[in-house]
Protein backbone atom coordinates (compact mmCIF):
# COMPACT_ATOMS: atom_id res chain seq x y z
CA UNK A 1 0.00 0.00 0.00
CA UNK A 2 1.21 3.49 -0.88
CA UNK A 3 2.56 5.54 2.05
CA UNK A 4 0.05 8.31 1.49
CA UNK A 5 -2.80 5.80 1.60
CA UNK A 6 -1.40 4.29 4.78
CA UNK A 7 -1.27 7.67 6.50
CA UNK A 8 -4.78 8.52 5.27
CA UNK A 9 -6.01 5.16 6.55
CA UNK A 10 -4.46 5.70 9.98
CA UNK A 11 -6.00 9.18 10.20
CA UNK A 12 -9.45 7.84 9.25
CA UNK A 13 -9.18 4.99 11.78
CA UNK A 14 -8.14 7.43 14.52
CA UNK A 15 -11.12 9.71 13.70
CA UNK A 16 -13.57 6.81 13.79
CA UNK A 17 -11.97 5.59 17.02
CA UNK A 18 -12.48 9.03 18.58
CA UNK A 19 -16.11 9.06 17.41
CA UNK A 20 -16.61 5.64 19.02
CA UNK A 21 -15.13 6.85 22.32
CA UNK A 22 -17.28 10.00 22.17
CA UNK A 23 -20.36 7.88 21.49
CA UNK A 24 -19.61 5.60 24.42
CA UNK A 25 -18.89 8.41 26.87
CA UNK A 26 -21.55 10.83 25.69
CA UNK A 27 -24.40 8.39 25.27
CA UNK A 28 -25.50 8.41 28.88
CA UNK A 29 -25.35 12.20 28.94
CA UNK A 30 -27.14 13.08 25.70
CA UNK A 31 -29.29 10.06 24.98
CA UNK A 32 -29.31 7.68 27.94
CA UNK A 33 -30.56 4.19 27.24
CA UNK A 34 -33.09 2.45 29.45
CA UNK A 35 -30.48 0.45 31.39
CA UNK A 36 -28.79 3.65 32.49
CA UNK A 37 -32.17 5.24 33.25
CA UNK A 38 -33.18 2.33 35.48
CA UNK A 39 -29.87 2.49 37.34
CA UNK A 40 -30.38 6.22 37.91
CA UNK A 41 -34.12 6.13 38.15
CA UNK A 42 -34.48 8.97 40.71
CA UNK A 43 -33.04 11.36 38.15
CA UNK A 44 -35.41 10.29 35.40
CA UNK A 45 -38.58 9.55 37.37
CA UNK A 46 -41.71 11.03 35.73
CA UNK A 47 -39.88 11.70 32.48
CA UNK A 48 -40.61 10.27 29.06
CA UNK A 49 -38.58 7.20 28.16
CA UNK A 50 -38.51 4.79 25.25
CA UNK A 51 -37.23 1.27 24.88
CA UNK A 52 -37.75 -1.94 22.96
CA UNK A 53 -38.15 -5.42 24.35
CA UNK A 54 -39.86 -8.75 24.26
CA UNK A 55 -43.24 -9.22 25.91
CA UNK A 56 -42.78 -12.08 28.36
CA UNK A 57 -45.94 -11.74 30.45
CA UNK A 58 -49.38 -10.26 29.99
CA UNK A 59 -51.66 -9.48 32.91
CA UNK A 60 -55.13 -8.64 31.60
CA UNK A 61 -56.53 -7.92 35.07
CA UNK A 62 -54.10 -5.14 35.94
CA UNK A 63 -53.64 -4.28 32.26
CA UNK A 64 -49.87 -4.60 32.60
CA UNK A 65 -47.26 -6.36 30.53
CA UNK A 66 -43.77 -7.42 31.50
CA UNK A 67 -41.11 -6.52 28.97
CA UNK A 68 -37.63 -8.03 28.85
CA UNK A 69 -35.08 -5.67 27.32
CA UNK A 70 -33.12 -6.96 24.35
CA UNK A 71 -29.66 -6.11 25.62
CA UNK A 72 -27.65 -7.25 28.65
CA UNK A 73 -28.31 -7.17 31.57
CA UNK A 74 -31.84 -7.84 30.21
CA UNK A 75 -33.79 -5.76 32.74
CA UNK A 76 -37.50 -6.48 33.06
CA UNK A 77 -39.93 -3.58 33.08
CA UNK A 78 -43.63 -3.53 33.96
CA UNK A 79 -45.56 -1.49 31.43
CA UNK A 80 -49.05 -0.24 32.18
CA UNK A 81 -51.30 -0.16 29.13
CA UNK A 82 -54.22 1.93 30.44
CA UNK A 83 -53.56 4.70 27.92
CA UNK A 84 -53.14 2.44 24.89
CA UNK A 85 -55.32 0.06 22.93
CA UNK A 86 -52.75 -2.16 21.25
CA UNK A 87 -53.59 -5.86 21.13
CA UNK A 88 -50.44 -7.57 22.37
CA UNK A 89 -49.40 -11.20 22.58
CA UNK A 90 -46.75 -12.95 24.62
CA UNK A 91 -43.56 -13.35 22.59
CA UNK A 92 -44.16 -10.27 20.47
CA UNK A 93 -41.71 -7.39 20.47
CA UNK A 94 -42.75 -3.88 21.39
CA UNK A 95 -41.27 -0.42 21.22
CA UNK A 96 -42.63 1.56 24.15
CA UNK A 97 -42.85 5.30 24.61
CA UNK A 98 -44.09 6.25 28.04
CA UNK A 99 -43.59 7.88 31.42
CA UNK A 100 -41.26 6.27 33.93
CA UNK A 101 -43.09 6.19 37.25
CA UNK A 102 -41.26 3.66 39.35
CA UNK A 103 -37.93 1.87 39.27
CA UNK A 104 -39.18 -0.75 36.86
CA UNK A 105 -42.53 0.71 35.92
CA UNK A 106 -43.58 2.68 32.86
CA UNK A 107 -47.02 3.94 31.86
CA UNK A 108 -47.15 3.56 28.11
CA UNK A 109 -48.31 6.44 25.93
CA UNK A 110 -47.59 4.77 22.60
CA UNK A 111 -46.72 1.22 21.63
CA UNK A 112 -45.33 -0.08 18.40
CA UNK A 113 -45.95 -3.80 18.26
CA UNK A 114 -43.84 -6.11 16.11
CA UNK A 115 -45.15 -9.63 15.88
CA UNK A 116 -42.50 -12.21 16.71
CA UNK A 117 -42.57 -13.93 13.29
CA UNK A 118 -42.32 -10.60 11.49
CA UNK A 119 -39.38 -9.62 13.70
CA UNK A 120 -37.59 -12.89 12.91
CA UNK A 121 -38.43 -12.51 9.22
CA UNK A 122 -36.38 -9.29 9.08
CA UNK A 123 -33.25 -11.32 9.86
CA UNK A 124 -34.29 -14.21 7.65
CA UNK A 125 -34.82 -12.07 4.57
CA UNK A 126 -31.56 -10.26 5.25
CA UNK A 127 -29.59 -13.48 4.80
CA UNK A 128 -29.75 -13.67 0.95
CA UNK A 129 -28.21 -10.19 0.81
CA UNK A 130 -24.84 -11.47 2.02
CA UNK A 131 -24.14 -13.98 -0.81
CA UNK A 132 -25.75 -11.52 -3.27
CA UNK A 133 -23.40 -8.69 -2.26
CA UNK A 134 -20.35 -10.99 -2.14
CA UNK A 135 -21.18 -12.46 -5.57
CA UNK A 136 -21.54 -9.02 -7.16
CA UNK A 137 -18.33 -7.82 -5.52
CA UNK A 138 -16.06 -10.75 -6.34
CA UNK A 139 -17.49 -10.98 -9.86
CA UNK A 140 -16.03 -7.54 -10.49
CA UNK A 141 -13.05 -7.36 -8.16
CA UNK A 142 -10.17 -9.57 -7.09
CA UNK A 143 -7.67 -8.96 -4.32
CA UNK A 144 -4.02 -8.59 -5.24
CA UNK A 145 -2.00 -9.79 -2.25
CA UNK A 146 1.16 -8.05 -3.46
CA UNK A 147 -0.29 -4.56 -3.83
CA UNK A 148 -2.89 -5.14 -1.08
CA UNK A 149 -5.51 -3.66 -3.39
CA UNK A 150 -8.59 -4.82 -5.17
CA UNK A 151 -8.23 -4.89 -8.94
CA UNK A 152 -10.94 -5.13 -11.55
CA UNK A 153 -11.26 -8.55 -13.12
CA UNK A 154 -10.27 -8.40 -16.78
CA UNK A 155 -13.66 -9.25 -18.26
CA UNK A 156 -15.18 -6.47 -16.15
CA UNK A 157 -12.43 -3.95 -16.84
Amino acid at each position, binding site marked *: *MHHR*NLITGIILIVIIGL*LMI*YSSIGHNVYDPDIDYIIKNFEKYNNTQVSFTGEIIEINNISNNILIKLLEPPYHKIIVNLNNTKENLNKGDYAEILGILNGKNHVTAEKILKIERWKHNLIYLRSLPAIPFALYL*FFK*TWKFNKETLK*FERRKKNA
Partner: protein
Amino acid sequence: MPDWLTHTLTGWLIGKTTKINIALIVIGSLIPDLVKINIAFTWLGINHLHVFDPLHTPVGAFLIAGIGALFFEDTKKAFIPLSIGVISHFVLDFFLVHLSGGTRLFFPLSWDKLNYSLIRSEDYWMTICAIIIAITVLIIYKFYDQKIKVFSK
Protein backbone atom coordinates in the same frame (compact mmCIF):
# COMPACT_ATOMS: atom_id res chain seq x y z
CA MET B 1 -33.63 -0.92 9.54
CA PRO B 2 -35.16 -2.30 6.40
CA ASP B 3 -33.70 -5.74 5.79
CA TRP B 4 -30.39 -6.08 4.00
CA LEU B 5 -32.04 -7.51 0.90
CA THR B 6 -33.98 -4.28 0.41
CA HIS B 7 -30.82 -2.26 0.95
CA THR B 8 -28.76 -4.31 -1.48
CA LEU B 9 -31.48 -4.41 -4.14
CA THR B 10 -31.87 -0.63 -3.88
CA GLY B 11 -28.11 -0.30 -4.31
CA TRP B 12 -28.22 -2.66 -7.28
CA LEU B 13 -31.03 -0.66 -8.87
CA ILE B 14 -29.13 2.61 -8.44
CA GLY B 15 -25.98 1.07 -9.92
CA LYS B 16 -27.81 -0.57 -12.80
CA THR B 17 -29.75 2.54 -13.82
CA THR B 18 -26.91 5.04 -13.36
CA LYS B 19 -24.19 2.76 -14.81
CA ILE B 20 -22.05 3.41 -11.75
CA ASN B 21 -20.13 0.51 -10.21
CA ILE B 22 -22.97 -1.74 -9.00
CA ALA B 23 -20.84 -3.93 -6.72
CA LEU B 24 -19.43 -1.02 -4.75
CA ILE B 25 -22.82 0.69 -4.38
CA VAL B 26 -24.24 -2.57 -3.03
CA ILE B 27 -21.35 -2.93 -0.58
CA GLY B 28 -21.75 0.73 0.40
CA SER B 29 -25.44 0.19 1.07
CA LEU B 30 -24.51 -2.29 3.80
CA ILE B 31 -21.74 -0.25 5.46
CA PRO B 32 -23.96 1.55 8.03
CA ASP B 33 -25.27 -1.79 9.25
CA LEU B 34 -21.78 -2.76 10.38
CA VAL B 35 -23.26 -1.43 13.61
CA LYS B 36 -24.88 -4.88 13.89
CA ILE B 37 -21.58 -6.02 15.38
CA ASN B 38 -23.54 -5.00 18.48
CA ILE B 39 -25.63 -8.16 18.08
CA ALA B 40 -22.55 -10.37 18.49
CA PHE B 41 -21.75 -8.59 21.76
CA THR B 42 -25.35 -8.98 22.92
CA TRP B 43 -25.24 -12.71 22.15
CA LEU B 44 -22.07 -12.98 24.20
CA GLY B 45 -23.77 -11.11 27.02
CA ILE B 46 -21.32 -8.22 26.80
CA ASN B 47 -22.50 -4.62 27.05
CA HIS B 48 -21.18 -2.86 23.92
CA LEU B 49 -21.52 0.56 25.61
CA HIS B 50 -22.68 2.12 22.31
CA VAL B 51 -19.12 2.06 20.99
CA PHE B 52 -20.22 1.02 17.50
CA ASP B 53 -23.18 3.40 17.21
CA PRO B 54 -21.22 5.97 15.11
CA LEU B 55 -21.01 3.38 12.32
CA HIS B 56 -24.72 3.95 11.76
CA THR B 57 -24.30 7.68 11.27
CA PRO B 58 -23.41 9.36 7.96
CA VAL B 59 -20.03 10.58 9.28
CA GLY B 60 -19.07 7.15 10.56
CA ALA B 61 -20.28 5.33 7.45
CA PHE B 62 -18.43 7.73 5.13
CA LEU B 63 -15.27 7.22 7.18
CA ILE B 64 -15.61 3.44 6.77
CA ALA B 65 -16.26 3.96 3.05
CA GLY B 66 -13.10 6.06 2.94
CA ILE B 67 -11.06 3.36 4.65
CA GLY B 68 -12.51 0.75 2.28
CA ALA B 69 -11.77 2.91 -0.76
CA LEU B 70 -8.07 2.96 0.14
CA PHE B 71 -7.94 -0.72 -0.83
CA PHE B 72 -8.77 0.06 -4.47
CA GLU B 73 -6.50 1.18 -7.28
CA ASP B 74 -8.39 4.43 -7.75
CA THR B 75 -9.46 5.57 -4.30
CA LYS B 76 -11.72 8.39 -5.51
CA LYS B 77 -13.46 6.19 -8.06
CA ALA B 78 -14.15 3.61 -5.36
CA PHE B 79 -15.22 6.12 -2.72
CA ILE B 80 -17.99 7.64 -4.88
CA PRO B 81 -20.04 4.45 -5.42
CA LEU B 82 -19.45 3.35 -1.82
CA SER B 83 -20.79 6.72 -0.66
CA ILE B 84 -23.79 6.49 -2.97
CA GLY B 85 -24.57 3.15 -1.34
CA VAL B 86 -24.20 4.70 2.13
CA ILE B 87 -26.57 7.56 1.17
CA SER B 88 -29.15 5.10 -0.21
CA HIS B 89 -29.05 3.27 3.13
CA PHE B 90 -29.78 6.40 5.15
CA VAL B 91 -32.51 7.54 2.75
CA LEU B 92 -34.33 4.21 3.25
CA ASP B 93 -33.77 4.24 7.01
CA PHE B 94 -35.07 7.83 7.23
CA PHE B 95 -38.56 6.66 6.31
CA LEU B 96 -38.80 3.99 9.02
CA VAL B 97 -41.40 4.25 11.75
CA HIS B 98 -39.89 4.81 15.21
CA LEU B 99 -41.45 6.04 18.43
CA SER B 100 -38.21 7.45 19.74
CA GLY B 101 -36.58 8.90 16.66
CA GLY B 102 -34.57 7.31 13.88
CA THR B 103 -30.98 7.91 12.84
CA ARG B 104 -28.50 10.41 14.22
CA LEU B 105 -27.95 12.11 10.88
CA PHE B 106 -25.85 14.96 12.27
CA PHE B 107 -23.74 13.07 14.80
CA PRO B 108 -21.32 14.17 16.35
CA LEU B 109 -22.72 17.72 16.06
CA SER B 110 -26.12 16.63 17.30
CA TRP B 111 -27.49 13.57 19.10
CA ASP B 112 -30.98 14.15 17.74
CA LYS B 113 -32.50 11.19 15.94
CA LEU B 114 -34.39 12.06 12.78
CA ASN B 115 -36.94 10.12 10.79
CA TYR B 116 -40.14 10.47 8.81
CA SER B 117 -42.42 7.68 9.95
CA LEU B 118 -43.68 6.05 6.79
CA ILE B 119 -42.64 2.39 6.61
CA ARG B 120 -42.49 -0.13 9.41
CA SER B 121 -39.22 -2.04 9.63
CA GLU B 122 -40.97 -5.41 9.72
CA ASP B 123 -43.07 -4.60 6.64
CA TYR B 124 -42.08 -7.29 4.14
CA TRP B 125 -44.00 -5.59 1.31
CA MET B 126 -41.10 -3.19 0.97
CA THR B 127 -38.81 -6.14 0.23
CA ILE B 128 -41.32 -7.67 -2.18
CA CYS B 129 -41.61 -4.33 -4.03
CA ALA B 130 -37.80 -4.08 -4.23
CA ILE B 131 -37.58 -7.63 -5.64
CA ILE B 132 -40.32 -6.95 -8.24
CA ILE B 133 -38.72 -3.67 -9.35
CA ALA B 134 -35.27 -5.30 -9.55
CA ILE B 135 -36.58 -8.20 -11.66
CA THR B 136 -38.47 -5.77 -13.93
CA VAL B 137 -35.36 -3.62 -14.43
CA LEU B 138 -33.26 -6.75 -15.08
CA ILE B 139 -35.73 -7.96 -17.75
CA ILE B 140 -35.86 -4.52 -19.41
CA TYR B 141 -32.07 -4.33 -19.55
CA LYS B 142 -31.77 -7.89 -20.92
CA PHE B 143 -34.37 -7.04 -23.58
CA TYR B 144 -32.54 -3.86 -24.65
CA ASP B 145 -29.15 -5.57 -24.58
CA GLN B 146 -30.48 -8.24 -26.96
CA LYS B 147 -31.99 -5.58 -29.22
CA ILE B 148 -28.69 -3.70 -29.38
CA LYS B 149 -26.85 -6.94 -30.22
CA VAL B 150 -29.31 -7.71 -33.06
CA PHE B 151 -28.95 -4.20 -34.50
CA SER B 152 -25.15 -4.25 -34.24
CA LYS B 153 -25.06 -7.47 -36.30
